[in-house]
């Protein structure tokens, strides 16, 4: 499984590349790796850089307790999502998105009782700890977590607290979600639309789709086609076109 967290880091020139294991397999042993194998100091430096990358993600997911205390959980959750680069929709209002420079209007702080209806956190660095901010939004109806690199099976097991209100969930393209995490979605009995397409870590997408559909009978599951992974032979195809449909 590729370590996705190493992508997009801008560390010291050359050193950040050396930390990423996939690079090491592709480019062969670089000078830094050679030094790390022979000197404890260089090895410690590489371990430190690795830890720093992890800490960066944690820093992005810190809770905003002062906003929560002053303005309530809805405002805190909205602020968190907007800070990550996502979009928020309050009940009865339009979508609020940050502009290209990351700035967003703080008007929503004037109405702390208005609940958040929909959250689009696609592509953000939200992880298990950052979900604390989302789980406080008790009237959330629609949650989009497409292509989030740090959302994994553990995060899905926390979503049960949104079971009363959540109607739409999209997990498309998250590289760390597997069928084991999808098994915890059965708590979400009010779910009507679920998108589980393009999940690279799911071992058997077609079978998983069927099992999730059985698990959530009232929900429309978008995802892999059940024929994905099956090979249709040429004879079967010709038989299909030739045979008439019985009236």
């Amino acid at each position, binding site marked *: 499984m590729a370590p996705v967290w190493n992508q997009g880091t801008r560390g010291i020139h050359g050193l950040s590349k050396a930390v990423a294991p996939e690079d090491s397999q592709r480019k062969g042993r670089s000078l830094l790796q050679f030094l790390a194998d022979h000197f404890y100091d260089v090895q410690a430096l590489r371990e430190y850089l690795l830890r720093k990358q992890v800490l960066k993600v944690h820093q992005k997911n810190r809770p905003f307790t002062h906003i929560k205390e002053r303005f309530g959980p809805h405002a805190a959750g909205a602020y968190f999502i907007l800070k990550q680069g996502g979009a928020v929709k309050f009940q009865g209002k339009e979508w609020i998105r940050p502009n290209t420079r990351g700035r967003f209007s703080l008007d929503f702080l004037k109405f702390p009782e208005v609940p958040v209806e929909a959250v689009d956190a696609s592509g953000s660095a939200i992880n298990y700890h950052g979900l604390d901010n989302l789980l406080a939004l008790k009237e959330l109806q629609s949650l989009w977590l497409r292509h989030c690199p740090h959302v994994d099976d553990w995060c899905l097991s926390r979503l049960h607290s949104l079971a009363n209100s959540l109607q739409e969930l999209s997990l498309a393209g998250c590289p760390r979600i597997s069928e*084991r995490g999808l098994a915890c979605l059965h708590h979400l009995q009010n779910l009507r639309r679920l998108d589980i397409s393009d999940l690279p870590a799911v071992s058997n997408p077609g079978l998983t789709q069927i099992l999730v559909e059985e698990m959530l009978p009232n929900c429309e599951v978008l995802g892999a086609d059940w024929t994905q992974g099956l090979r249709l032979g040429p004879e079967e195809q010709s038989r299909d076109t030739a045979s008439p449909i019985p009236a």
Partner: protein
Amino acid sequence: MLRRSLQFALGRDVLGRGLGTHRGGSTLDWNGKMSEIKKKIQSVLPGGAWTQLHDTSYLPPEHSDVVIVGGGVMGLSVAYWLKRLERPRGAIRVLVVERDHTYSQASTVLSVGGIRQQFSVPENIQLSLFSIDFLRNINEYLAVVDDPPLDIQFNPSGYLLLASEKGAAVLESNVRVQRQEGAKVCLMSPEQLRNKFPWINPEGVALASYGMEHEGWFDPWSLLQGLRRKVQSMGVLFCQGEVTRFVSSSNHAETPSGEEVTLKRVHEVHVKIDHSLEYQPVECAIVINAAGAWSGQIAELAGVGKGPPGTLQGTKLPVEPRKRYVYLWNCPQGPGLETPFVIDASGAYFRREGLGNNYLGGCSPTEEEEPDPENLEVDHEFFQDKVWPPLAQRVPAFESLKVRSAWAGYYDYNTFDQNGVVGPHPLVVNMYFATGFSGHGLQQAPAVGRAVAEMVLHGNFQTINLSPFLFNRFHLGEKVHEHNII
């Protein structure tokens, strides 16, 4: 003739001293002699490989600060935390002695792999809460630069404990304790059970407790490999061998009440190599007994329990191997993806395995039916008689199933109170225990490893207080009774 004379001339040296064969080379062969002398000097000087008569790299080192007997998840966890909590870095030399590198009989890899917080003893709940935290952040704890991240294949599906009329009150009080400690458990009535899991037959069930988060099952082999890899990168040495003897010294002391006490200290551990009579005495300061099902034997070797019964000297370590069977079956109409780890009121349990309608399950036998722990042979009759009927009654779909395979593993069963033994022995002062978990060792291993490391390095428990689990309780008779042992 000319050829013969040439051979004669070239066979000897120029001066005709052919009979002076010292080491098979001629005496005036300066180049050869010099290179031999150089090789000898190089091997004696420091930094050169002292080529002994044979290669001894398979032997453990002659000195080690800590020797951990047992290389399963418990032993490796103690090694990890010792290296992680030591100050300064690199201060402690740790040696892990494991008898079988294939882990063919180790409880860790034969385990069903579940982790839960639904215990009745608060310390057990705390241990399990920390361990699940460890597993969630395993790639931060066990990260090794240049190696791919670990995937322990955790299924966060939760545990479902069912209780009959008799056990309902106990279950309710247990859930209260669990929620106080921070576990996310909810109680369900039979009606709610039928709504949530339509494949369950709630007849006979008075109350059920369902763990919503932090519970499930995972792959113990990947945890073991991850720990092994990280611990090797931290500088812990491994040795394949069997501990056959402890060499210790005794000290006599008198208690304030006038009793004579013998304090022992282990100085050397004799590690015998497989398939040979050769052994290496390893001088050590601390010994950690993490030998799992065989901890009782290791403790006896160290002199634990050699004394008149009823005294502290005579209190043996009450850990013995107990055999447990696990069966894998296939049931096409069985419960679906949402199946938690179900533990029935009768003691039978099962969980989903994979996506193909396969299930793993078993049941603990009663005291009278305990199988002989001599070997790991599976008794298929046990499934027919003791496991299948209660499960088929609870899940009607299981009435038609097909057993695919089965295996057996050992519990390091604590016959006293089925809870772990952690901490030093009061008389053998430098032996620490991390064993006796009776079937829930894997799920507590990261936290117990940290506790033992704290005890060794600081002398007391700092994060989770495991003083109810010390060895003294066997002599004092204070049982720490855990209700939820499968």
